[in-house]
Every structure is written in C-alpha cells, then in structure tokens.
C-alpha cells in the first residue's frame, strides 16, 4: 500500500483551478518533493491531503485512509508543519508540545519522554520554558518540526519547512529529515521552491499552474535536459553562434551577452572546442544541469524570477508583522 495515493484530485476557487486533476503515488519511506513556483498549488494539495480543505473532485488516500470518508484516521496518522507558523505564541515551547500530546492522546509516561527527546533533537531544551513569541523564526520552525513528530506519524507533511531560514539552519533541518527517514522509515511529503533542496528528495513532482508537469528522480529529471550547460562569450558572438550551429550541431541561445547551450558530456566537448574553435573565445563556463534547468526546459520560464522572489520577501515581511503584534 502506498503512503499517499492521489487520483485526479482538483480544487477550484471560484474560477481558478488551483489544483487541476493531479494524480501520483508516494511510496512508503521515501522523501517525496513537490516543487513549483508561487501559486502552483502546493499548499492547496497538502491542505486537501491533510483534510483541512475539501477537494472539488477526485480521490486520495493517506496511509490507506480516504481523505473524505476517514478523516479521523487520516488525521491521527499524519504529522504536519504548515507553511505559516501555527504555534500558540503566548504559550511556552513546552506548553505547545503538551497541548499537542494531549490532543493526540499520548499516554503520560511516553509524553514526558518524547517531549524531552524532541526538544533535545531540535536544540530547544534550554528554552523549553520560554514563550514562543520570544523565539526567532528558525527556532519556531524547529519547534514546529518537533511538534509534528511528537505523535510518531507515519507520513510527515512539510510545507516549505525551510522558508526564510539561514543556510546553517536549513542544513540542520535537512539532517533531521534524512535521519528520520532512515531511522523510522517515515514517509516525508514536502514542498519547496528551493531547487537545491529538492535534490535531497528521492522523487520529485514538478507542479505548475495546478498541473503536474514531471515526476521522477532528480537524476532522471536532470537527464531530460540533455546534458551539461555550457556558457561562453566570444569576441564576435554572431560568428561564434553560426559556427556552433554549423560545426557542432547545437542550439545556442543568446542572452545577456553570452551564448549558452546544452551538450551531453560537457567536459569532452569543451576540450574539443578550445582546440578547434575559430572565433576568438573570451570565457567558457560549464556546469551540470540543475532542477532550475529542468523547470526552464519544461515551462520556458525560470522557477524564481525577480518577481517571484520579491513576492516571497513580501510574504515574509507580512508574516513578521503578524507575529509582531
């Protein structure tokens, strides 16, 4: 039985198809990534899977339980870290965990033990008595992660677990996530729009405008780009492009004063190129394809253009303001 199974799931807000007939399966014990730009429908999908939002159509099961007919069982077997903070800021870290333990009916002895263990795990043991409103963003995020794990769920949903965190904390959180996967055979379903993070997943679904446009392992997805990305600058770019097209049969793209194209086996290609190229070269750069390239290839746009990252900043700022009150 797959951990999560989704069949033609849709959610419509007014006329907007936020999630448009998506189907996929998540295997037990895997880290499954949902990757897509702002507004792609990631959070909407998670909300439906965790029974907070009713689907407009389609079916889904989590741990074999139907998300519409067996909501209580679904809720009992999942853990969640929401995109926006869902802690009670006026309670202490420990009180937040206690509330959670009571709500999930964790028996007395276990309760103390697990709360201690988890506070240790996320490095908040010495701040357990502090009110959450005195925590930094990263500390809150870690506390939420601890809370999501407290009742030992079988599937953990993480909605952008590292949004707005510094690289060090992001790294820490990823360490926990992998640890959990190995130790407890926990299934993890996460969303992100950080491409580098998505590489940590066993499989990735790329979603755009509510539709799934690709689903595979990171390596296979990168293969579909068609090799390594070579970027070069020449003294006379126009003749260089012509030469590249005629002699090397690649499809160069000219952008921001530099020429770029994909070739299989990039290193060998460059060695040849340097040796034989007739136009005078100014610089050469080669890099392995990233998931950014995959997204660009599939949709024709970058996943995080200027506007998107600006929206992110706005989102962050407004969240901060909400909390500050």
């Amino acid at each position, binding site marked *: 039985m797959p951990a999560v199974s989704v069949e033609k799931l849709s959610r419509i807000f007014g006329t907007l198809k936020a999630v448009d007939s998506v189907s996929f399966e998540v295997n037990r014990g895997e880290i499954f990534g949902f990757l897509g730009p702002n507004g792609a429908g990631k959070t909407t999908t998670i909300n439906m899977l965790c029974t907070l939002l009713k689907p407009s159509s389609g079916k889904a099961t989590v741990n074999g339980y139907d998300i519409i007919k067996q909501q209580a069982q679904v*809720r009992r077997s*999942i853990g969640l870290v*929401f995109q926006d903070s869902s802690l*009670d800021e006026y309670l202490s870290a420990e009180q937040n965990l206690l*509330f959670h333990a*009571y*709500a*999930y009916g964790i028996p007395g002895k276990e309760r103390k033990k697990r709360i201690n263990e988890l506070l240790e795990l996320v490095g908040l043991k010495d701040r357990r008595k502090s009110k959450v409103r005195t925590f930094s963003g990263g500390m809150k995020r870690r506390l939420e992660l601890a809370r999501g794990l407290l009742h030992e769920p079988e599937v953990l949903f993480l909605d952008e677990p590292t949004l707005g965190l510094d690289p060090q904390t992001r790294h820490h959180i990823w360490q926990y996530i992998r640890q959990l996967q190995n130790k407890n055979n926990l299934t993890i379903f996460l969303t992100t729009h950080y491409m580098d993070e998505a590489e940590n997943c066993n499989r990735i679904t790329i979603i755009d405008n509510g539709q799934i446009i690709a689903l595979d392992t990171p390596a296979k997805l990168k293969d579909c780009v068609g090799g390594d990305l070579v970027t070069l600058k020449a003294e006379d770019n126009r003749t260089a492009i012509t030469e590249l097209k005629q002699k090397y049969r690649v499809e160069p793209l000219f952008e921001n004063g530099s020429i770029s194209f994909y070739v299989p086996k990039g290193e060998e290609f460059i060695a040849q190129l340097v040796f034989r190229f007739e136009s005078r070269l100014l610089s050469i750069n080669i890099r392995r394809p990233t998931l950014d390239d995959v997204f660009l290839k599939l949709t024709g746009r970058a996943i995080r253009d200027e506007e998107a990252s600006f929206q992110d900043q706005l989102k962050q700022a407004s969240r901060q303001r*909400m909390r500050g009150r």
Partner: protein
Amino acid sequence: MTSIFRGIWVVAYRELVRFVSERSRLISSFAMPLIFLIVFGAGFSRMIGTLVPGVDYVQFIYPGIIAMTVLMNSLMSGVSVVWDREFGFLKEILVSPLDRRGILLGKASGSATVAVLQGMMMLLLAPLLGIPISFKMIITLIPVLFVISVSISSLGLLIATRMRSQQGFQMIIQLMIMPLIFLAGVFYPVNNVPLVMEIISKVNPLTYGVDAIRQVFLGSTETSVIGVTVFGHTMSILDNILLVAAFGFILLSLAAVSFNRSD
C-alpha cells in the same frame, strides 16, 4: 465519543492556561460592569428608592451587573476562535484528531469557566452594597452562571465561525453588546415598559439569564412586579435556566454546522 471529551478538556485547558497568562483581560472585563454599577447605582438609587419592599435599586441592578460580567467574558470564546484562525493555531487544532464538536464545546466551556470565576469575583462587592449573601446562594449561582455563560459563548462561537478578522468580529460584538445589555432587564423591570421594548426584551435570551441570577439573590420573583412574565406565566428560576440552555443548545448546534462547513 472519547474524542469529543478529549476535545472538550484539551481545548478548555488551553483557554484556561491562556487566561492565566493574560492578566489584562481580567481587569478589562471588570471595567464596564463596574462603571455601569457605579453610574446607574449612584445615579438612580436615591431617586428610585425601593422598587418592591426590601429591594432597593442597587440590589435590583446588582444581579444584572453580574450577568453583564459573565456576558463580556463569554463572548471571549469567539474572540479566541478568530484569534486562533488569524495566528494559524486553529489549523493545529483542526488537523488533530479532536472532534469538531468537542473543540467548540471546549472553547465554550473554557471561556464559561473563566466567566463564572469572574462573575463570582463580583460577589466581593456584595457586602459593600449591603446585599446579603449566603453559602447557598453561592452554590446555586455557580451552575446558573455556567449555563448562561455556555449559551452566550455559543453565540460568540457561531459568529466567530464565519469571521476571518479580529476587527470584523469586534465590530459585530460591539454592535450587539449594548442592545443585549440594555434590553435585558438589567436596569428596569421588563414587565413595566412600553410594548416594543417589552417584546424585544422578552425575545432577548439574556433577560432570562438576568432574571435567574436575580432570583438567586432576591428569592422568587414570581409574585412581584420585578419578575418576567411570558404569555401570562411568570418565570421561575428553573424555567429561566431551561430556556437559556435550550437557546444555547440551538446556537451551539448551528455553530457546529457552520464550523464543519468552513474551509
């Protein structure tokens, strides 16, 4: 079934923990009833004197002031739902296996407990106002206040299930609170006012709550002018409580339906 009970106590427990850590609420919910007591009590008592033998004006409005304290605190249940929604904590509650009805009942009984405590604290004023209180009164008062409070909490919850912002909720509550209080027979006996006012007062469920509290302090009002008569029947304390409870039950059921439906 167990998940309903767990919902009730877990959610109520948090309300109480929150209350203990927020002292400003304690003071602010006393302010308005106290101002009313002082202004109206001092303002009218000499002019009005005794309403019926043995009951002066301050003694008459005092039970209503307690009802007011309970009302103000009970409506906090709704505030706390809107607050939780705004700050995201409601999601944590809603994805937990707690039963939705249990969650609502927990909010209602949590704020009702606080409201009863606050109402009881108003008893400290009784000796100053020359109102005799007995142990039996206190024991009777607790369940009476609790029922009234759960019912009014349900009203707050029903509104809150439809509200997305603190400001919107506060607006509606402000609009409702004055008519609820002034047309509940706190400051005058409802049997002796112009017909329109009488009708509105007798539709207002708080009227029966005020009358129930009044009867706890002043004894049965069934034969006196300060009682509440509906269709020729003067309400006893039990009639009042049953009516308020029925009203609360209807509101809470509506709130549960509305809560379940909201995404």
